[in-house]
């Protein structure tokens, strides 16, 4: 049992340690209260359960998307493919674009539920917020997965590790004549 006064690691140590936690790069997207699309690059996305299909997304309370992820809200979790680094950078605040202008990076299409989905992502999960739990600086958002869309050709996954983008998996050498699948 830990007491409140027991020592915790410094945030510096936390950050340095977490740099070693390789993560699949995701962009979480939703609609703000005013109807404008909002999005955020996140690696704090975790598979939760297959029954019911659900996942966890952790977002800082101060992030612009936080207010859009209230109980019952619809959102998407897009698993980025190699080649979508610019999208990750734009939604990670590493480009000048703010707010809606971030959506100029990547090809975004609204689902039937009006949720922005990233075309070319390996997977786009359409989710509904089932529960939000707060922990210190962050909201822990449990999303019930309503639908999953897969890219026609799966490509290498974009991952983030030691402050750099990399990839896991393979990409087909050239786009095939996939036609209508």
């Amino acid at each position, binding site marked *: 049992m830990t007491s409140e006064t027991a020592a915790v690691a410094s945030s510096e140590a936390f950050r340095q340690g977490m740099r070693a936690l390789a993560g699949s790069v995701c962009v979480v997207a939703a609609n703000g209260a*005013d*109807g*404008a*699309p909002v999005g955020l690059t996140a690696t704090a996305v975790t598979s939760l359960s297959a029954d019911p299909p659900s996942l966890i997304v952790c977002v800082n309370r101060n992030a612009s998307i936080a207010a859009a992820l209230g109980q019952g809200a619809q959102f998407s979790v897009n698993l980025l493919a190699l080649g979508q680094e610019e999208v990750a950078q734009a939604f990670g605040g590493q*480009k*000048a*674009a703010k707010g*809606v*202008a971030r*959506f*100029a990076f990547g*090809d*975004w*299409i*609204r*689902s*039937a539920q*009006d949720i*922005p*989905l990233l*075309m*070319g992502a390996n997977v786009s999960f359409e989710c509904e917020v089932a529960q939000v739990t707060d922990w210190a600086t962050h909201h822990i958002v449990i999303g019930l997965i309503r639908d999953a*869309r897969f890219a026609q050709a799966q490509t290498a996954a974009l991952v983030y590790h030691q402050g750099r983008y990399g990839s896991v998996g393979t990409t087909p050498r*050239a*786009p095939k*004549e*996939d*036609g209508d699948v």
Partner: protein
Amino acid sequence: MMLKPHPLKGPNRFKIGVFSANADGGLAITDVPERWRARWDDVVTAAQIADRAGMEFFLPIARWRGFGGKNRVREHSFETFTFAAGLASATQQIGLFMTVHVPIVHPVYAAKALATVDHISGGRAGLNIVCGWNPDEFAMFGIQLAGDAYVQAAEWVDVIAQCYGTNQPFDFKGKFYDLKQVVSRPTSVQVPRPVTMNAAFGPPGRDFAARNCDYLFSTFSEIADGRQHVEDMRERAAAVGRNVGVYTVCHVVCRETQKEAEEYYTRYAVTEADHAAVDYHMASKKEFANSHDGDAFNRYRKRFAGGAGSYPLVGTPEKIVDEMLKISREGYAGSALTFVNYSYELPFFCDRVLPLMKQAGLRVQ
């Protein structure tokens, strides 16, 4: 509905589309009996051929009156929002532009109409933003040509962006628009808005394109002159942190032999051109247009009759692909194409030219 990225964001290195099939004559000013009459059934046929062949876009012109001459060329033309809506239901995958005159169409109307087509088509809508050049057309609407057309255009696209960006009523106060409590739902399927293009030639128009358009269409007299437009646009776009793809326009005569193609080109664009209409078109555009360079007017009357001053792709399938390869090497991302008769000529073009484009590395699908 299957969600797909807009066709213009697809993988082909050199994208192609059909231009001006909504208007009498297409882009030609000719009196040959098979000239394009732009009847709806023929338009649908042409669009479906292009759609099945995997061409990326269908781009109409916006015309409110014709250029006179024997056939009153372009006088018959379909309005482009309703045109695109009709084609959206008749096609599966091709991008569908609407060509909209900023001074004539109110932005709140445009936002709703464009979103409607984007929904009908499943995210295939595109907006070609034009300021207009023809005072005779504006006179029909009681509108004066404004000197600061692109200032108005910038406000116009701002209004549309805000329509799509919020579900809360908003006020807009600019120099041209003073709007109260605007709402426009649904928003577009494409986020944050459908793809946009324009065809500006002068600096104010290109700066407008740099800020507000995804694609710029530009003509050139010779392929070797093309690069300057690409570089000019690239610089202007980079200055505002954006990318703008540059496309061109070509009129096509593709035949089995070079001789056959050239003879037909001369027949429809010289011998049997609608000369009175060519005179009117060239005179009025020379006086008011900023969309072509001066050389194009003086040197290329044939090209005006052939395809409104655009570049001619005339010859065998091999020759045409060779030319497109050169255009691509100048930095162009694609071309809008016109034909004397789209539904007669597209099948041969798609059967013979598209496979060669693949071989040449211009297209992967």
